[in-house]
């Protein structure tokens, strides 16, 4: 699907299904330097099982035009504007990493819009190391290597992709390389600067799911704990032997968590 959001052409993957106003809608929001394709298996499942799926490419990412947004707050308002532009009045939001923060803030700011909230690999705050921020600004290949090294559970760096024939570190690297120059630095700075996570969590009215990877080094489970504590109506799924790249590392377990919640 392509819609204009604030004048910029915006792409959302729909699982090759046409939008049906009679069906409930699920919006997927990707993380820093990524695009809709991180949701491949999960988004397809829901598109084939009675939901409208809108796996967006955030502004300046993937197939969407526009400039990348510099704050989580701006991203959250953009998600609301995107849903309005797509003609969606109510949706469940599923976000990963930076996308989880955007979904969280969106649920706090636009309670009427967000029916359910699933946060994968969130953290509040989500501080990013100076080394990674510097690399994202000055040496993107080095930043990509850091992210790929840190976002997978140690075993995943030797492969074992659940999808036959795919090499996880290679795919993760190429996806980051596809981002336009400067996008990753803007995304990481937005994560690093976001201070509203706990307040947002406290004001979320809808049911929320938090999925954490027990081997996640980018957003370790303990850095999600305060956020989890602040949520009122919540469910937590903790994935053993899984890192931050959970939609790739453990696609079936992530899907099962989402099916159980949505």
């Amino acid at each position, binding site marked *: 699907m392509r819609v204009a959001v604030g004048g910029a052409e915006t792409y959302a*993957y729909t699982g*090759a299904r046409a939008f049906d106003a009679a069906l409930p809608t699920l919006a997927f929001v990707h993380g820093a330097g990524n*695009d*809709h*394709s991180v949701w*491949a*298996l*999960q988004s*397809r*499942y829901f598109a*084939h099982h009675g939901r409208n799926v809108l796996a967006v490419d955030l502004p300046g990412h*993937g*197939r969407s035009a526009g400039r990348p947004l510099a704050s989580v707050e701006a991203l959250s308002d953009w998600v609301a504007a995107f849903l309005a532009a797509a003609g969606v009045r109510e949706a469940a939001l599923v976000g990963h990493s930076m996308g989880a923060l955007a979904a969280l803030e969106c649920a706090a700011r636009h309670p009427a819009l967000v029916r359910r909230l699933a946060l994968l690999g969130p953290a509040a*705050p*989500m*501080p*990013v*190391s*100076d*080394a990674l921020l510097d690399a994202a600004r000055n040496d993107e290949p*080095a930043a990509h*290597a*850091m992210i*790929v*090294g*840190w976002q997978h559970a140690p*075993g995943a*760096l*030797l*492969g*074992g*992709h*659940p*999808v*036959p*024939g*795919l*090499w996880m*570190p*290679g*795919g993760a690297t*190429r*996806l980051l*390389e*596809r981002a336009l120059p400067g996008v990753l630095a803007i995304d990481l700075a937005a994560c690093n600067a976001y201070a509203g996570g706990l307040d947002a969590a406290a004001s979320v009215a809808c049911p929320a799911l938090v999925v954490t990877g027990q081997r996640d*080094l*980018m957003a*370790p489970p303990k*850095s999600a704990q305060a956020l989890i504590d602040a949520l009122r109506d919540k469910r937590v799924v903790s994935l053993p032997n899984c890192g931050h790249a959970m939609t790739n590392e453990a*696609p*079936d377990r992530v*899907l099962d968590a989402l099916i159980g919640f949505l």
Partner: protein
Amino acid sequence: MKARLPLPTPMSTPKSHRFDTLSLHAGARPDPATGARATPIHQTASFVFPDCDHAAALFNMERAGHVYSRISNPTCAVLEERVAALEGGVGAIATASGQAALHLAICTLMGAGGHIVASRALYGGSHNLLDYTLPRFGIATTFVDPRDLDAWRAAIRPETRLLFGETLGNPGLDVLDVPRVAALAHDHGLPLLVDSTFTTPWLLRPFEHGADLVFHSATKFLSGHGVVIGGVLVDSGSFDWDGAKARGKFPTLTEPYHGFHDMVFAEESTTAAFLLRARREGIRDFGACMAPATAWQILQGIETLPVRMARHVENARKVVAFLAKHAMVAGVAYPELPSHRDHALAARLLPRGCGAVFSFDLRGTRAQGRRFIESLRLFSHLANVGDAKSLVIHPASTTHFRMSAEDLARAGITEGTIRLSIGLEDADDLIEDLSRGLHAAGKA
């Protein structure tokens, strides 16, 4: 001060594993069911579905897993990951042979009306496929001198969909200038496919130089022992099939495929669209898949690829040095020799060596050539390369038999050309064997 993200080794970049380690481990872990340390041979045609929903989810690409060994198999998947890791790609598909890998690459990118620009210095089998067989299906190829960048450029037409060459061309070891040919391809919105059979990722990683797709005849150095036929096709994941220059050229990847849920593969996967189409169409429908036992043999070979390749190259250098000085030898085509046309390029692209397959020209008649081959005791006279054992063949009467005299000459082959594949024996024994053969030829 805000607490920083607790990183394991905050001052260093994370460890990505190195080549030799990946050769042994990439894609494989001890079997969770049995503890088996070696990769099991999953000798099964099919895989049981836990329930009907799961079955549907596998068919519809909503869950990850195996359905039927033509489409994917766990042993083959380990090999696919391993080769993708060694090449630095996003994934791979194991095929029944090197020929099947080339065919799969081409048919994934184009149908009737498509056009390829290929190096003239190709393995005879690749040449057959491109020059004689694919035209029957409406796919044409223009062959060019791999060194002539203007010729590559001039041969590109509006319907061109692929540039193709061998990293080290058969049989003269023409070195493909991968960076320049890739840049030219990309200027025209086209991908570059390279046959890396002779170099293996140990000698050259073409993706680092701009190539988009790589294939191997795994029959050769990857398996390394002359015991299987197999191929592997690897995707770098870098080519933008939907990019401004490529737009409209690759409908198999950018338009809905009615044969699989109307998926637009470039939208389904940003980095692995090519592999998706190749698996969901090409392997599914043409069916040239690899057998799991074959994948296992190739995995065994790859475990020792770094040590074998080092020894292959070391032995090849000694044999080249011997032949280059021999009175019965008119010339040796090895790019490390200053006499080779691609000497400078090889020094840049192939610092670890130029492999262990090369040709030399014997002085004398066809009968003397025959006498030479038949006098050898260690070198086996057969049609293969990349075995642990040393091999010899006479291209003009075998691999390149179908080529016209003119094409032969253009490919740098004469009646006296002998191709060697240097194995892992003691180099002195190999040199003694060749010495005996040359002596016999001299007396014939």
